[in-house]
């Protein structure tokens, strides 16, 4: 019935231009490269911090920088974001201060989510970045609802939902895309096909020829793009957004990319992934590809990148130091934000805890290590 969606590309594996490159100014192109590089450095440091036992857990995005920054660059000022736990590059792109990111990784007293969630579960209201939760897919139907909200309010803009290949199997993927299709809501569904759901490969995830093809079931546009080609992703995302804002309905974009790191700091891909597969994708590293292309365009030099890296590393080091030095949230915060106001039962439980501590001293911290 449907023949598989074809794969959009702008930069080929060795950095040459195929087809038409988007009209982006040199500064834009450099900003994109910077965000990709910064993300890579943030990921490397995050993994190290976890290995050193300084943070409890970390989710890297290595290999998916183009897939994320390409689309992130197409976002509008007023757009809304329903991210996943693997898309911190978007916060980096939007210039969220490093300290804010590290505060969350430490779950310390200045962490904006008050140490309530595991690392990588960010929330940044100021950039309409909705709180991330662990259950896979739940943000997808929520994004459809927020986009419907834009329609109800008659406001212009676009909602972006991020999820992975595994997320397409969730209840909320089906519900969210179906509702958005019926409502013709201004939303772009970004499916990052990084070939793995922890240890489950895509062929065990679905028999659909491509993830983009799933758009057919919801009467919406499906686009499949080379996720390691930052310009191709930008182009696909920009067009999808324009259509959404013009009232032409939602788009499902599949970015074909690869998870070059482990699922998380607790995972070891060697148990289930062939080394050869990893090496094949290493050759398609999105940063190397974009670097090669920028070089051809005379927009890149080693010195420039070295400076860039050094600057970023210094910022990261400072932010890490500051976050690590920040104490944990105070015990009484445990009872805040359950309801708009503190109900009697909780007030009583809070008082009980405080009384116990007064009586028998601080509560010891047993620790525990995360397996996933």
């Amino acid at each position: 019935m449907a023949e598989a969606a074809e794969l959009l590309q702008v930069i080929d594996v060795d950095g040459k231009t195929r087809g038409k490159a988007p009209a982006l100014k040199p500064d834009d192109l450099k900003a994109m490269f910077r965000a990709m590089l910064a993300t890579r450095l943030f990921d490397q440091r995050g993994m190290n911090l976890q290995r050193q036992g300084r943070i409890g857990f970390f989710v890297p995005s290595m290999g998916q920088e183009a897939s994320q920054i390409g689309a992130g660059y197409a976002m509008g000022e007023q757009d809304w974001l329903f991210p996943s736990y693997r898309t911190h590059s978007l916060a980096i792109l939007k210039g969220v201060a490093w300290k804010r990111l590290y505060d969350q990784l430490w779950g310390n007293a200045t962490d904006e989510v008050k140490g309530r969630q595991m690392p990588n579960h960010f929330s940044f209201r100021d950039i309409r970045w909705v709180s991330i939760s662990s259950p896979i897919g739940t943000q997808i139907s929520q994004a459809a609802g927020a986009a419907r909200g834009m329609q109800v309010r008659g406001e212009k803009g676009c909602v972006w939902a991020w999820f992975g290949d595994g997320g397409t199997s969730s209840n909320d993927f089906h519900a969210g895309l179906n509702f958005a299709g019926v409502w013709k809501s201004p939303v772009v569904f970004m499916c990052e096909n990084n070939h793995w759901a922890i240890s489950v490969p895509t062929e065990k995830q679905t028999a659909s020829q491509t993830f983009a093809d799933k758009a057919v079931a919801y009467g919406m546009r499906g686009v499949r793009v080379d996720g390691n080609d930052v310009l191709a992703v930008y182009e696909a995302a920009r067009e999808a957004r324009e259509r959404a804002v013009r009232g032409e309905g939602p788009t499902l974009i599949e970015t074909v990319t690869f998870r070059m790191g482990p699922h998380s700091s607790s995972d070891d891909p060697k148990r289930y992934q062939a080394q050869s597969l990893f090496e094949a994708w290493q050759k398609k590293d999105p940063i190397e590809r974009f670097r090669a292309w920028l070089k051809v365009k005379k927009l890149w030099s080693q010195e420039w990148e070295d400076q860039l890296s050094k600057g970023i590393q210094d910022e990261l080091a400072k932010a890490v130091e500051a976050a690590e030095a920040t104490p944990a949230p105070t015990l009484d915060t445990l009872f805040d934000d359950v309801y708009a106001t503190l109900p009697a039962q909780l007030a009583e439980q809070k008082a009980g805890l405080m009384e116990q501590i007064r009586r028998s001293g601080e509560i010891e911290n047993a620790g525990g290590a995360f397996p996933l």
Partner: protein
Amino acid sequence: MPEMTMLQAINDALHVAMAKDDGVVMLGEDIGKKGGVFGATQGLHDKYGEMRVMDTPLSECGIIGSAVGMALYGLKPVPEIQFLDFIYPAFDQIVSEAAKMRYRSGGQWTCPMVIRSPSGGGIRGGHYHSQSSEAYFAHTPGLRVVMPSTARDAKGMLLSAIFCGDPVVFLEPKHLYRLAKGDVPAGWYVEDLDKARVAHEGTDVTVVSWGAMMHTCEEVLKEAHEKGISVELVDLRTLLPWDAETVLASVRKTGRLVTVQEAPRTCGFGSEVAATVAEKAIDSLRAPIARVAGFDTPFPYTLEHVYKPDRKRVLGAIEYVCRWE
């Protein structure tokens, strides 16, 4: 004050809410043109159109998931789940998302929304149109659980719920939709979401109930009185957070407690009431606590009247605790 059935009072509350705040939207199955299978949303679709009263695809997951998104965006969605028995496909969005949004985001994001759903038996709906699963939600911090038993409370608490800023599971005892009648203030009118209601004062025994079972308990008052038993009847009205103080004060006075629920007995909300009293008013207790409840079986069809606690079962429990020496 106009007299209304509970169903009319709920419909009236929805009209008032939509007129007051254009951020109030409704979504669900058959709530538009049909006006809801019980008629609770009559007239709203004609008046406010498809943008604010949405007939959705058949997906509770999508109804609640998109409602959460609307709430995050700044609207006040009032999704309807056609029968409480069909809320489970949306359970994840309710307990993992709506209930935890405020907490997990450190207060950055909230989910002001009211999930309306007809609950309990009384229409011969067999075990997929009769369940009382309030206890699941009452065990979920972050949710408010409200279950009125009068037309007046139905209106006042529904309006409070829509504007309280928290996610609320608003359970409508379908058995009382037409049975519960009474004077209901016209226009804007709100009721407290943190207080139980002493429906009838008494001195010998405290009977605690909520929803449709309140109706059965009220029928028993007279019979108990004739047997010389003075019953204090407390209508909890809200199950989370719930008003333990009113119950404790009553038990301290009467020295006896009977809880009455339609839901299965084990781990139902009556257990919470009993446990709280055993924890905080044990010295006042002059008899065992008695729980009257549905049996620990699924809800039947032909034998619905046997499954649900009836006057005899309630009266039996009252006499049991009052006869205790």
